[in-house]
């Protein structure tokens, strides 16, 4: 296989090629490391490459394959992750200066599960400082740049995850999603990404931002890879008491489910307010593709979403301010102005309003379920309502324009975090300017399988996901 053929494989394709000894784990890693080094000056997506450790792991993976043993479905697949997943003996950066000054005592459950499945971690990725920024700006390590146009934002906070995967410099990456941080980089960079149901994936050993809203999930080039990786990550974990005990479905088997029996909802309210015309047209084209696949598309009325977004903002701000309180008191200069300002705003939220925001959450989920999931299997919507802006246009630091910009970027993603529902982002097409645009499917709690079936059917009928940026 040529280097390009290897780099364009999906995770599942590469794992199959390694198992069949059509390519070695060492070769796959070497071409990935070489690609990573070549795109880094343009994209600034890696914070560290662990080449030697990864090569050692790849050699072991090849010896295991030679003995007829594959650890799991990701055996030999190189991956780098957002630098907020702790590995024993290593200090994570959290994308800034605040954070663990000492090596982590234990490895994050998500990393442990990927290790057990055979994945090989070869580095860590740029991210928004403390995962508290939706654009991909980073004032400590430099802004992360979009593989489709390095002048444009990647989205955040999983900025390096989105652009490294899109650039074929990484096969898949862990992101985290508290207000849209998996789906925003997935849409701006043209990858798939899944924000699982709150409680589906353990957060143990991952940097917390808002313990009520944080979720852990993958970004990958195909929905099939997202399904494969979520199957590895999901399930109860004694180290995270918020994880749900229900069994994890076979997400890979779900990919084969026919979509003809499914009903897709198109929201009448909120999600298309002030939506860019090209994005709206791409959403309609994607719905037409689903109609051709036999799915039914119906319009649905939503309850009022904005109060839920406000309540979600209060929860994230108040919890983040509490988590960072000691550092805000003792090391305020170690934050960038933007992150310090956002954290400070959480200190002004009254305790009773924070608690009301939590009390409202169950009521909101019930209302949303009644309005949406009593009529349709999933809700289909754009991820953002505007085209990918440039890094310069969105460089607002901590100034007065910051709140307005942040509210606009996360407006369509935060509702799913507040409701805790699973959401899959899939590329729906390209704008005339050549930038990818994503759609999102919101599903019933713990029904990631239906989202994967729809996303996979779309990718089987289109080729947007297989197009690569020219770098």
């Amino acid at each position, binding site marked *: 296989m040529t280097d390009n053929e290897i780099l364009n494989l999906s995770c599942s394709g590469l794992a199959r090629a390694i198992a069949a000894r059509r390519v070695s784990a060492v070769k796959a890693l070497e071409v990935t490391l070489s690609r990573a080094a070549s795109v880094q000056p343009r994209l600034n997506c890696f914070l560290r490459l662990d080449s030697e450790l990864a090569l050692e792991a790849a050699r072991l993976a090849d010896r295991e394959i030679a003995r007829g043993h594959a650890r799991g479905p990701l055996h030999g697949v190189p991956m780098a992750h957002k630098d907020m997943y702790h590995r024993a003996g290593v200090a994570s950066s959290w994308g800034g200066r605040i954070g663990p000054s000492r090596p982590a005592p234990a490895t994050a459950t998500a990393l442990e599960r990927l290790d057990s499945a055979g994945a090989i971690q070869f580095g860590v990725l740029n991210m928004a400082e403390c995962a508290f920024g939706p654009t991909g700006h980073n004032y400590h390590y430099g802004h992360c740049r979009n593989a489709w146009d390095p002048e444009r934002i990647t989205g955040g906070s999983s900025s390096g995850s989105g652009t490294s995967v899109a650039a074929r410099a990484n096969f898949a990456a862990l992101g985290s999603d508290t207000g849209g941080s998996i789906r925003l980089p997935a849409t701006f960079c043209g990858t798939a990404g899944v924000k699982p149901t709150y*409680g589906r994936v353990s957060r143990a050993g991952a940097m917390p931002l808002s313990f009520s809203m944080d979720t852990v999930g993958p970004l990958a080039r195909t929905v099939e890879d997202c399904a494969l990786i979520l199957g590895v990550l999901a399930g109860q974990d004694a180290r995270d008491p918020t994880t749900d005990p229900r069994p994890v479905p076979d997400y890979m088997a779900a990919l084969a489910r026919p979509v003809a029996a499914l009903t897709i909802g198109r929201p009448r309210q909120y999600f298309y307010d002030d939506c860019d015309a090209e994005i709206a047209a791409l959403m309609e084209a994607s719905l037409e593709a689903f109609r051709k696949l036999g799915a039914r598309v119906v319009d649905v009325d939503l309850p009022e979403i904005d109060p839920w977004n*406000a309540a979600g*903002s209060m929860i994230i701000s108040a919890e983040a301010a509490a988590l960072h309180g000691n550092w805000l008191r003792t090391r305020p200069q170690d934050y960038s102005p933007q992150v310090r300002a956002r954290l400070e705003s959480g200190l*002004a939220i*009254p305790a009773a309003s924070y608690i009301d925001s939590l009390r409202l959450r169950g009521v909101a989920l019930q209302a949303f379920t009644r309005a949406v999931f009593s009529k349709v299997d999933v809700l289909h919507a754009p991820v953002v309502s505007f085209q990918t802006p440039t890094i310069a246009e969105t460089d607002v630091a901590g100034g007065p324009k910051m709140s307005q910009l942040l509210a606009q970027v996360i407006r369509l993603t935060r509702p799913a975090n507040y409701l805790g529902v699973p959401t899959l982002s899939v590329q729906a097409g390209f704008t005339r300017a050549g930038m990818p645009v994503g759609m999102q499917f919101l599903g019933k709690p713990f*029904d990631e399988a239906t989202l994967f079936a729809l996303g996979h059917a779309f990718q089987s009928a289109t080729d947007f996901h297989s197009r690569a940026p020219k770098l």
Partner: protein
Amino acid sequence: MKTDFSAELAVALVNAQGISCTPESAAEDAKFAASVLERASAAFARLAFEDEPSGFTAAQRRAAP
């Protein structure tokens, strides 16, 4: 509900928690707090006396397929 959340109040709240802030950042804090409190206030007013945070987990279980 119109929320009267002034920059002076934001300064007092932030300082009371041992954190210093500038007049500019306090003005932004006040604007943020006023905005989210106003937008959520009607929904909060409709909450039943019995509604509590654990209602979210219960709603998740009920809505799961």
